[in-house]
């Protein structure tokens, strides 16, 4: 039994003949917010799909909450928000959440709670298909928050949101982590990195760095995390 919420060792994934993940290994400590940062196309989504057990992997091990990823017992314990929100365009926000709540066997009161969490009060009775991109991505996030998931895997949950909302969501993530939930949040925007307790920097299917934001700054001698990332990429290319 490990103390990490997620433990990945030697993970390799091949998609369409290309090696998308090349020997990836890291741990995500419980009750923390870990950021998975990297440019679009670097393998973040594939890695997250491997963690929730939706990805066929070539080799390596992925352990989630002490069980192999994809174990049936994990299905109610892991919340996942896909990048293209997994919501029904022809249902209202409330109807959609009610459905997923009954699949997860979460209490009906959860629906109102998660709508409040992602600030979709005003849109609760609107069709999902009529929402803006940011709103429907928040609807997808709301689905992930249903029930009491111990691990939340969120694929770019803050894309397209205005700065105030983004700030509120990061505050929500911090609150959830404080209450014991583990969060793995991906983003391709480096300025979100500072909001995470730990960072995984990814590029071209490998993990470049696995550190705290502070540790990364000290290691690279750059205060700006974007610069720190660039420094890492360049020093690796030089090597």
């Amino acid at each position, binding site marked *: 039994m490990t103390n990490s919420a997620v433990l990945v060792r030697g993970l390799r994934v091949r998609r369409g003949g290309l090696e998308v993940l090349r020997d990836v290994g890291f741990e995500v400590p419980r009750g923390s917010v870990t950021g998975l940062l990297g440019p679009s196309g670097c393998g973040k989504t594939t890695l997250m799909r491997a963690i929730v057990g*939706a*990805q*066929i992997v070539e080799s390596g091990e992925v352990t989630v909450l002490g069980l192999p990823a994809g174990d049936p017992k994990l*299905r109610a314990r892991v919340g996942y928000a*896909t990048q*293209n929100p997994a919501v029904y365009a022809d249902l209202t926000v409330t109807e959609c959440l009610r*459905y997923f709540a009954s699949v997860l066997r979460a209490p009906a009161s959860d629906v109102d709670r998660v709508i409040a969490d992602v600030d979709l009060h005003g849109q609760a009775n609107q069709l999902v298909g009529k929402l803006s991109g940011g709103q429907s991505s928040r609807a997808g996030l709301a689905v992930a928050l249903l029930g009491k998931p111990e691990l939340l895997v969120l694929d770019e949950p803050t894309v397209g949101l205005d700065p105030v909302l983004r700030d509120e969501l990061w505050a929500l993530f911090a609150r959830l982590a404080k209450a014991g939930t583990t969060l793995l949040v991906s983003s391709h925007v480096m300025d979100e990195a500072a909001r995470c307790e730990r960072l995984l920097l990814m590029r071209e299917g490998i993990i470049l760095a696995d550190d705290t934001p502070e540790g990364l700054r000290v290691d690279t001698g750059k205060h700006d995390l974007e610069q720190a990332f660039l420094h890492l990429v360049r020093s690796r290319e030089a090597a």
Partner: protein
Amino acid sequence: MNATITLATARRILTQLRHDPRTIVMLLLVPTLLMTLLRFVFNDELVFSRIAPALLGVFPFVIMFLIASVTTLRERTTATLERLMTMPMAKLDLILGYAIAFGGIAVFQVGIATGVSVLWLGLDVAGSVWTLLFIAVLDALLGMALGLLVSAFATSEFQAIQFMPVFVLPQFLLCGLLQPRDSMGWVLNALSDVMPLSYAVDALTHVTRSAEVDLTLLRNLVVVGACVVLAVVLGAATLRRRTP
């Protein structure tokens, strides 16, 4: 499997449809309109009574096939299926949810078409109208189940739509409606023997002509029912929790 989740899924699909009233109206009325059209094409109650029962099965079969294959394809190609497959939901919960939702609609669809045909269009049913209704609903379910199944092999809506002529029209051509099955060549006859719609049409024709419930009728119903179950189970088996 879990009855609550299955029923929640059926309710969700019906709610989705409720937001699309035009589709509901078309689902409920198109077979009836086609039956009415057919009645006036023949302009003869006797000829109509000979052809109509088979078409009472065929129209819902075709419509349900299309609707089911497109909706499930939509579920497969958007992220919702992947998401559901990471949730504590059995594959059969999803497929049975679809079966219950579309089966319910089929009852109304076929009920209206049968009612109008018998009451106003002069369709003469020797056997029980309820049996006729039952077989027609079974046909609709068969179309639905086959639609669910073949949607697994379509990667786009264009392909899904074109599976209709591939899977449905040959069954229609060979089901004995255009030409009695035993007067076809042995190859076509053998082909029609392995097509479930043939058994459905045989059963429908039998019910209109005779009040007797004989072994052949029962056998035909069992064959159609078994095909529905088989297609539902195979459809569930095509769902994947892990994908490349």
